[in-house]
């Protein structure tokens, strides 16, 4: 049984997990840094434990303090949220050693998907299409050049240990490869402590489409349809996500859903996870990676399926069988999430900090707000700039886009700069409104704007 959950995270996702725990009658323990003492996730939890000073490494990424917080709180389970320790096997293993349930997949599954080369091999073994490229780690620059010429430029150099759009370099010709190879290796070593690289064909202007899966610990595994996440910033971070991918054929939806389930099953996956794909304009899809945790953009899936993903995570973590079969999962309507960040769109999206003096959030039918901030809260420079998620739901994509537009127009923040003005322009773009988007959308849009 799970009766007391410590949420090893901060901000909106910690609050999101707490909400479902409370609804389920489960006691909650928040952790917080000294800088986050006024965050709503602290106020909402039944109790809260300070785990360190402001910086992430001192607090949310201080392994000993977070583990000891779990121990002294008497929690019987830990929800990791996303980021932080959510995909660190060391954390999950340590909890297991302490007799505390990690609400997520097995260590084996995290390991299998945390290594890009191993993940790709697993996808191939599961008959899931992958982007043409190196069969695993590329030994040296000469091999990289040979492979790039085989599959054709442009190619991507990808750090094996990267993820979430980080650790990727595009190479357009053999002339650039030597220089960029060294740069990419150095960056990978510095960022991830691992210089191993892959070479992959660069799919031009693909869509980023991901499939949500969830499995129980009895071998049942289903998918909850796809999310379209092509609207990404110049650092490959998602900004606006939607579900479903409205332009998708039913045949493709079925093929991708089944492929995602095959890949996850191949590594004995349980709990919630996301299989990410690139989809080209001819409906070819390629396995990209698997995120072995709850995703930032999970609310759009919740909106169209009526399911509570955190509830499902907790239920399967406490040993229950999945409460529904693949056939019982249905979706209806259309949902879009916009990530609200404390960034100044007029200053190359530089982080903005300071006291929020006004916070007039949108509301009304079809509008969901997930945020840990409020008027009177001070945004600190220590953390990710995402301060809220605005999720809208409509009967179809057009209605969802309209609701998003109205909601963004209403959203009024003072004291800090936010990306809201940028989002307002984005949702008025004709291509965006027509759903004619790809991962090339934002760079083009910014070039035009």
């Amino acid at each position: 049984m799970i009766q007391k959950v410590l949420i090893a995270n901060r901000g909106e996702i910690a609050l999101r997990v707490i909400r479902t725990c409370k609804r389920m009658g489960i006691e909650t323990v928040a952790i917080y840094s000294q800088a986050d003492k006024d965050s709503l996730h602290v106020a909402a939890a039944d109790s809260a434990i300070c785990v360190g000073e402001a910086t992430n490494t001192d607090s949310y990424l201080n392994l000993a303090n977070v583990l000891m917080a779990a121990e002294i709180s008497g929690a019987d389970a830990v929800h990791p949220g996303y980021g932080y320790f959510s995909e660190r096997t060391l954390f999950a293993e340590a909890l297991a050693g302490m007799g505390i349930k990690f609400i997520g997949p097995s260590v084996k599954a995290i390991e299998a998907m945390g290594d890009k080369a191993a993940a790709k091999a697993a996808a191939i073994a599961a008959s899931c299409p992958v982007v043409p490229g190196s069969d695993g780690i590329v030994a040296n620059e000469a091999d990289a050049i040979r492979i790039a010429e085989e599959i054709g430029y442009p190619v991507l150099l990808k750090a094996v240990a990267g993820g979430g759009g980080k650790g990727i370099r595009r190479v357009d010709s053999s002339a650039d490869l030597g220089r960029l190879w060294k740069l990419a290796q150095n960056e990978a070593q510095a960022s991830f402590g691992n210089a191993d690289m892959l070479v992959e064909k660069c799919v031009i202007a693909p869509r980023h489409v991901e499939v949500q899966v969830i499995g129980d610990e009895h071998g049942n595994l289903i998918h909850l349809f796809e999310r379209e996440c092509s609207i990404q910033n110049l650092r490959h971070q998602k900004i606006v996500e939607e579900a479903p991918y409205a332009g998708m054929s039913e045949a493709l939806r079925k093929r991708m859903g089944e492929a995602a389930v095959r890949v996850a099953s191949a590594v004995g996956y349980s709990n919630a996870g996301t299989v990410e794909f690139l989809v080209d304009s001819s409906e070819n899809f390629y396995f990209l990676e698997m995120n072995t945790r709850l995703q930032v953009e999970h609310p759009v899936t919740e909106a169209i399926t009526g399911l509570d993903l955190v509830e499902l995570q907790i239920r399967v973590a406490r040993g229950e069988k999945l409460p529904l079969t693949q056939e019982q999962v249905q979706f209806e309507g259309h949902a879009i999430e916009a990530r609200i960040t404390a960034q100044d769109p007029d200053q190359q999206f530089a982080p903005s900090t300071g006291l929020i003096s006004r916070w007039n959030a949108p509301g009304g039918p079809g509008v969901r707000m997930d945020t840990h901030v409020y008027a009177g809260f001070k945004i600190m420079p220590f953390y990710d700039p995402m301060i809220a998620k605005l999720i809208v739901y409509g009967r179809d994509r057009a209605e969802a886009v309209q609701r998003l537009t109205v909601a963004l127009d209403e959203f009024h923040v003072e004291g800090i700069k936010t990306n809201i003005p940028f989002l307002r322009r984005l949702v008025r773009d004709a291509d965006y409104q027509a759903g004619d988007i790809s991962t090339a959308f934002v760079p083009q849009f910014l070039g035009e704007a």
Partner: protein
Amino acid sequence: MKELDLETIRHALRTARENGYEVVRIRSGAEAFRGTLDLTRPESATPELVFMPEEMDADPEETEGQAFEEIRAMAVGYFAPGSLFEVSASVNKGDVVGSIRALGISNDVTSSVSGKITEVLVGEGDPVQFGQALARVEV
């Protein structure tokens, strides 16, 4: 973290300006400032503003000329008192006064101040969180 940072002052000034106050007095712990705003200038112009340290009133808790500080936990775990960790013990800054056990490892707790322990706030085996006051010291 100090409470009376630039952000606090900026907020106070904004509030003062919005509400048409001309004199702003900000107090935080041992610091106090008094500022005068020239409201006739537009906000974008450099404000005519003078902030000066003020004489502080005595803190009610320090009326007898005594000052207290706290020894705080710098880790999460279970506390174990050292031999110095008792009322009336004299401690010097840097003295080990106990330990916090975390993941099987004992981490020394050192006193951040010199003085006499007047109150112990946790006992053997008590779970403590980061920053938690462990003892009061008269400095």
